[in-house]
């Protein structure tokens, strides 16, 4: 690495400016979450990067403490939407991963299921609206509207094809010999799946689950259509954060956005080891 100094400077400048470009909105949100109303509203004459008088008012406001400055009071706090988002995204991810992984394994190993792979994609072929309206009617009939489990079920169904396709590629890449070796030594199929295949698939499971979770966590449209009041999720709740007096409540929105960013980040860090390490199946020659 004996590149010239000007080149190195240029390289880092280019990288930093690209990183900055993608981080600016996030940083702006983080900064805004800690600003008092005077600094984020239109009445604030000048916008600054750093809050001049940092405050936790936006967070307090979200969780029910009325603010003298805002004059408005929320009809409900952010607690229930956060719970709703967590429940529906987590259980939706579980449904998608369990059914998707099972289907992928069966199809990859035994070739059963015929046209299932294509059938699974068709849900994504149509525009979401076209799919969601009939679902809405069915869910209303089943009494699943505005319940976290009704939402989780739809999330599971909608993201299952992703889980399926991702896991199928991983299963296809895993050499059969590893399972055959265990079978020859007298293991049952089921035991091989539990003790050999799944443990070796841990990195694949982790990265697929993260992907599916983020899809579910950031959904807006489905939650908007299938929840009305009790179980609205964070994105839907966020859209409702406005008042006729002050317009959009940007401070509160930024604070909620910051909270919403926590679970994917934690999950990402938790499975980073697997994501970075990638897949090394059974120490095989390549």
């Amino acid at each position, binding site marked *: 690495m004996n590149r010239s100094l000007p080149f190195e400077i240029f390289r880092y400048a280019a990288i930093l400016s690209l990183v900055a470009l993608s981080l600016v909105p996030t940083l702006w949100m983080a900064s805004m979450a800690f600003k008092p109303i005077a600094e984020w509203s239109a009445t604030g004459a000048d916008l600054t990067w750093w809050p001049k008088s940092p405050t936790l008012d936006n967070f307090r406001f979200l969780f029910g403490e009325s603010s003298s400055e805002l004059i408005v009071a929320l009809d409900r706090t952010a607690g229930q939407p956060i719970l709703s988002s967590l429940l529906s995204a987590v259980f939706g991810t579980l449904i998608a991963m369990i059914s998707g992984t099972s289907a992928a394994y069966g199809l990859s190993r035994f070739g059963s299921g015929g046209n299932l792979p294509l059938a699974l994609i068709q849900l994504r072929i149509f525009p979401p609206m076209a799919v969601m309206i009939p679902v809405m009617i069915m869910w209303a009939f089943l009494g699943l509207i505005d319940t976290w489990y009704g939402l989780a079920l739809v999330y599971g169904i909608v993201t299952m094809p992703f889980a399926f396709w991702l896991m199928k590629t991983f299963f296809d890449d895993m*050499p059969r*010999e*590893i399972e*055959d*070796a*265990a*079978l*020859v*030594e*007298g*293991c*049952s199929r089921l*035991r091989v799946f539990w003790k*050999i295949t799944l*443990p*070796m698939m*841990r990195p694949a499971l982790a990265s697929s689950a993260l992907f599916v979770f983020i899809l579910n966590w950031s959904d807006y449209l489905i939650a908007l259509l299938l929840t009305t009041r009790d179980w609205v999720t964070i994105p839907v709740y966020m859209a409702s954060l406005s008042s006729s007096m002050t317009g959009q409540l940007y401070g509160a929105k930024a604070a909620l956005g910051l909270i919403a960013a926590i679970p994917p980040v934690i999950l990402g860090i938790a499975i980073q080891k697997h994501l970075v390490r990638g897949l*090394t*199946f*059974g*120490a*095989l*020659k390549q």
Partner: protein
Amino acid sequence: MTAIHLENLSKSFGAFTALKGMNLDIADGEFVALLGPSGCGKSTTMNMISGLLEPSEGSIRFGERDMRGVPMGRRGVGFVFQNYAIFTHMSVYDNLAYGLKATGVAKAERDRRVKDMAEFLHLTPMLNKPSAGLSVNILQRLAIGRSAIMEPAIFLLDEPLSNVDAAFRAVMRTELKHLQRQFRQTMVYVTHDQLEAMTMADRIAVMDHGKLLQVGTPIDVYNNPSNVFVAGFLGSPGMNLLKGMIVRTDLGMRADLGDAGLSAPLSSAQEKSVSDGQAIVYGFRPEHCQLTGDDGIRLPVTFVERIGARTILHLGNKGASIKGVFDNDVVARSGEIVTLSIDHANIRLFDAGSGDAIVEAR
């Protein structure tokens, strides 16, 4: 009890026939190598013995027991895969203990056998290490150990040494032989490496295009190949094979080898087994020719390859190409025309049509 009998064994995948009509009897405790180029059906045969594949036709018997429908876990076979198939999420110890655990061997017994096997294969220092980061050589030892620890009556090895380095391959050849002597299993060893087959096996089964071509002791197969393919495949370099036609001359029958000239007269036994005008393939091993001839194959030297212990001369012109192996101090220059003399006993004749060896009349 652990002899293997393959009877008229065939396997097709759709329209493709991987193996046709294979008959082979492997005795109890015998070491048989299935040798052939890739795609010859040797791995297919192996997979059917292990139970990974069901035969399309024919039968497999272990001793008197028909294996049709017996799942692979109950066949009592050990299988070592070409790519090791190590369970990388487990330690070396757990890999070795895996089969014993699955079949419900008690913990104390399990522990003793794992330690014995580790000792035997020099794996003791890394018993508690994770298996993921081990070198290829150690992984291959581990794979062999994991199968051998089950003390299978039949041990199947599918090109186990094809990925390890040359020095280690030589070590493992000895160790595998040692392992077999210790446990007395019936061993079937698939390889495309003739050196492995020649050095380890009691008998070699040479295969090509889904057919078993010849079975015999390594020396017998090497000396008396039953057809042109076996002749060319075994040996490094393989047997020289020149197309020609039998002609009658004043000095007896000879082979007209086209661009390589007329061969020296055939022996009387050979004369009796061929007829005038018959199309044949004239074969002899590169190490069986001398440069002292005055009547016989005459060809120019095209290339002199000195490999240390010996020197290989490439001889040929546009229609014929052969090799000769000589002492390393042989005097030869490119372009020089030489006459080869080959002892009658070392000449093998094959029928040009069928490729089969022409059996000499007595």
